[in-house]
């Protein structure tokens, strides 16, 4: 065949060319080219909205997350949670397909609600969307109203729903949208009347560390103040193994969440993942509504406890004061192993603000701070935080840049450590820099979500992990004459 003769032979890349490119991607020239790209995103450090919505849903008792849209999305969210927590993540989808694209997804929603209600016996289903119904313009408000009218779901069954288009924002925005909808739904008919109920509503935000939730509860209990933790994923994603599988092993009780507007105060420990929830609460709730920095590090934890003290009118409990003292003792003992060390960090805005605050108070330098989907407001706030400390001098902030940009940054302006989720492990390997796994998802190490990072205990954990890893590296890599008993 003549066409055959025109077929190109397989071309193998010559080893010298591989070597050239291998070196080239570490150069200033490559960095410039890499930062000039406009359309291509390589290795982003953020997920999409519905994943965040699903996490909120798992944080409420007897609540079944319900994905309106393509079933494949539900499988992706679930398996991401399964891998991070090594726990079940029961979630249904109404499995829209081509005909849904033409006729809309109302019938899928009806059938899905009916089946899920009957098979999994939830007390609430939290509905959120994938791209497909968002693009075709499904009207969830009407669909859910119709579902009740036509008897597919009992009239009084709580069905909060949120539009969570993946082509907008990231998982933290989906978290926000779903949380707001759940609270709006549950609190309907529980509007403020008379005096507040004395409770403090605490919103940790998008945080995939179950131990942090337990730590928040422990601190609040130490204050001996009634509180409601919204949305409490600690038992859902760190449940016991006693030989019985429970689809809903914990979470914020719905009746407690229903009183959210009657609390004495609402405190969010992340602000970028709770923007709309707080805005709504600010208008609807009778107590004070505010957000604080995530309590990572001593100062942020101090601020959190002082706020609790202010809200409750009680002094910070002695046991927490002692914890602070011990954590500070550990920092003054251990600072020498971290002072001046440079770090690259990537992750969600609130986590980054907390971690940077901790590094600065330790005397370490948050050299490259990168968030792959966020706002100018965050950039400003981060820069302002860096300016509060001499250790922030020269540090740089990159927003809406990805982990391949970070590759170039590490190549041309290296650091001592990287802090971020599992996706940074290729950077760590390429640049021979240790990765400290913080954030979401962590899918290549066990149990890190079971070690708190917030509060004084969390600060101690972070310090220990950072310092000891550098000491391990020193012991593992130094030449014989520099190997010694003490460090």
């Amino acid at each position, binding site marked *: 065949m003549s066409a055959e003769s025109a077929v190109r032979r397989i071309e193998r890349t010559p080893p010298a060319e591989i070597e050239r490119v291998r070196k080239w991607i570490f150069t200033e020239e490559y960095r410039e080219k890499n930062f000039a790209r406009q359309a291509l995103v390589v290795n982003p450090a953020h997920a999409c909205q519905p994943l965040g919505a699903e996490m909120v849903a798992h944080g409420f008792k007897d609540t079944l997350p319900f994905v309106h849209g393509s079933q494949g999305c539900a499988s992706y969210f679930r398996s991401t949670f399964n891998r991070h927590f090594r726990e079940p993540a029961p979630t249904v989808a109404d499995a829209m397909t081509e005909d849904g694209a033409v006729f809309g997804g109302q019938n899928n929603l009806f059938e899905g609600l009916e089946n899920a209600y009957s*098979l999994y016996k939830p007390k609430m289903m939290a509905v959120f969307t994938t791209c497909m119904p968002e693009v075709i313009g499904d009207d969830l408000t009407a669909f859910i109203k119709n579902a009740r009218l036509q008897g597919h779901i009992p009239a009084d069954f709580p069905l909060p729903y949120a539009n969570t288009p993946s082509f907008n924002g990231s998982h933290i925005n989906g978290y926000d949208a779903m949380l707001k909808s759940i609270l709006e739904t549950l609190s309907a008919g529980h509007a403020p009347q008379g005096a507040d109920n004395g409770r403090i509503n605490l919103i940790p935000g998008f945080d995939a560390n179950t131990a942090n939730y337990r730590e928040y509860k422990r601190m609040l209990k130490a204050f001996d103040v009634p509180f409601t933790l919204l949305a409490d994923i600690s038992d859902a994603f760190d449940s016991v193994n006693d030989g019985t599988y429970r689809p809903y092993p914990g979470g914020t009780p719905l009746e407690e969440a229903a009183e959210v507007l009657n609390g004495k105060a609402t405190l969010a420990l992340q602000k970028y993942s709770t923007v709309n929830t707080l805005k709504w609460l600010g208008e609807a709730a009778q107590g004070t509504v505010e957000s604080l920095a995530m309590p990572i590090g001593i100062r942020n934890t101090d601020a959190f406890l002082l706020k609790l003290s202010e809200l409750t009118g009680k002094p910070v409990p002695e046991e927490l004061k002692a914890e602070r003292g011990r954590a500070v003792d550990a920092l003054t003992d251990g600072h020498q192993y971290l002072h001046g060390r440079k770090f690259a960090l990537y992750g969600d805005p609130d986590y980054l603000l907390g971690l940077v605050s901790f590094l600065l108070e330790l005397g370490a330098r948050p050299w490259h701070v990168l968030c792959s989907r966020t706002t100018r407001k965050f950039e400003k706030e981060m820069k302002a935080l860096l300016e509060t400390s001499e250790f922030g001098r020269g540090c740089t902030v990159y927003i809406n840049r990805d982990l391949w940009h970070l590759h170039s940054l590490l190549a041309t302006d290296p650091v001592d450590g990287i802090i971020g989720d599992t996706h940074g492990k290729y950077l760590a390997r390429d640049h021979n820099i240790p990765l400290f796994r913080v954030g979401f998802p962590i899918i290549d190490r066990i149990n890190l979500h079971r070690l708190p990072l917030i509060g004084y205990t969390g600060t101690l954990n972070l310090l220990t992990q950072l310092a000891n890893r550098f000491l391990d590296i020193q012991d593992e890599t130094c030449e014989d004459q520099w190997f010694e008993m003490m460090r």
Partner: protein
Amino acid sequence: MSEKIIPGITTERTEKLIAQTLAEMPEKARKKRQPHVGANEPEASVCAVKSNRKTVPGVMSARGCAYAGAKGVVWGPIRDMVHVSHGPVGCGYYSWGTRRNLVQGVPGVTSFAMDFTSDFQEKDIVYGGDKKLEQLLREADALFPLNHGLSVLSECPVGLIGDDINAVTKKMEQELGKIVVPCNCEGFRGVSQSLGHHISNDSIRDFVIGKRSFDAPATPYDVALIGDYNIGGDVWAAKPILEEMGLNVRATWTGDGAIEEIAATHQVKLNLIHCYRSMNYMCKVMEEKWGIPWVEYNFFGPTKIAESLRKIAALFDADIQAKAEAVIAKYTPMAQAVIDEYRPRLEGKTAMLFVGGLRPRHTVGAYEDLGIQITGTGYEFAHQDDYDRTAPEMAKGTLIYDDVSEFEFERYVEELKPDLVGSGIKEKYVFQKAGIPFRQMHSWDYSGPYHGYEGFRIFARDIDMAINSPTWKLIKSPF
């Protein structure tokens, strides 16, 4: 083959279990699910269990989507291409590094197991993403110049807003001088991953195969390994066996695959197909268009490996047949040593499976080599021909379930009380919380390879470790 019998498993009991379980479902769902579950009839030429239908909304299915089948299964494992997840950020993010299709090469230089995405924003939905895609492909080729091709995998919005990625890839293939492949695998298409495999096969047919020729002289022993995705290094355990019996493995589809070798595969003499479900389409295309025969084989467990090697060798000359016998003779004692070590601890145990393309039937022999019987099996996304191939492998009366819901699966396992469940990550912790040993059979639970003789040793170790771990004994608390 003598008929398999498992003590306690009868058609009557299985049918009763099915009836009881489905009785708890709403009527419409029950009617839809009924045809997808049945008691096995090994002699039946057509399996009665129906498949490849729409998932019932709200029942909690384990299925993925067409994109997952395209990106995760077919394209992702090709190591030297830039695979662009075209659309919003999530799909590419969740499928980044989560299938364990290992690759050789220098990451970011010659191999690209990374997440390339157009990260669609609202404006891309409104104005369309074709222009962005064109620029993106140009940028990707400039920043990763040693790629041998680029694929564009559409996510849901792309098809809904009417973008024409095929026009873009056609233009860019000319401009870049590389293979640039469109794959219209939007997640809402079809009923499962399976359509994504099919669409991807069609893309290979239309845009890849025949575009290159091999750079070494042809021999009568040139074969391609089709449908091995190198999970945990499977290809690296399978290929050497075939080479040892004298065959030249010229291309691997698509585990640790090179796109130009795939493009030249029309020049091989025989296609060996492991995962029939995901790749039979292209085997049939190559048979029709180039007259290349294909043969299914099974590299799980020594019994099936030996059967497969003889079946493959029979298609070649006496020399290859003699070498195949030599390979079997060489490795059988090693496999026997593995059996001698583990079988005493596993004899008489039972397992239930629920996996993807080939494993619900292909791994049965490997379990049986270890003395474990399979009491139930099923597929997430199989078709009738998969179930027809499954029936003879399973004992009479065993439970066959298609696209099983979590609700059903829990009930079935509760009743049949297997010593092991082999399924996916979404099922793993459900059953482990119930105290039932579990192995992920998609990802080999971060172990592997499981293919070939080397793989069998690891498989046996893992199954023994799962079933006989002392940790299960700690679950019952003394207080």
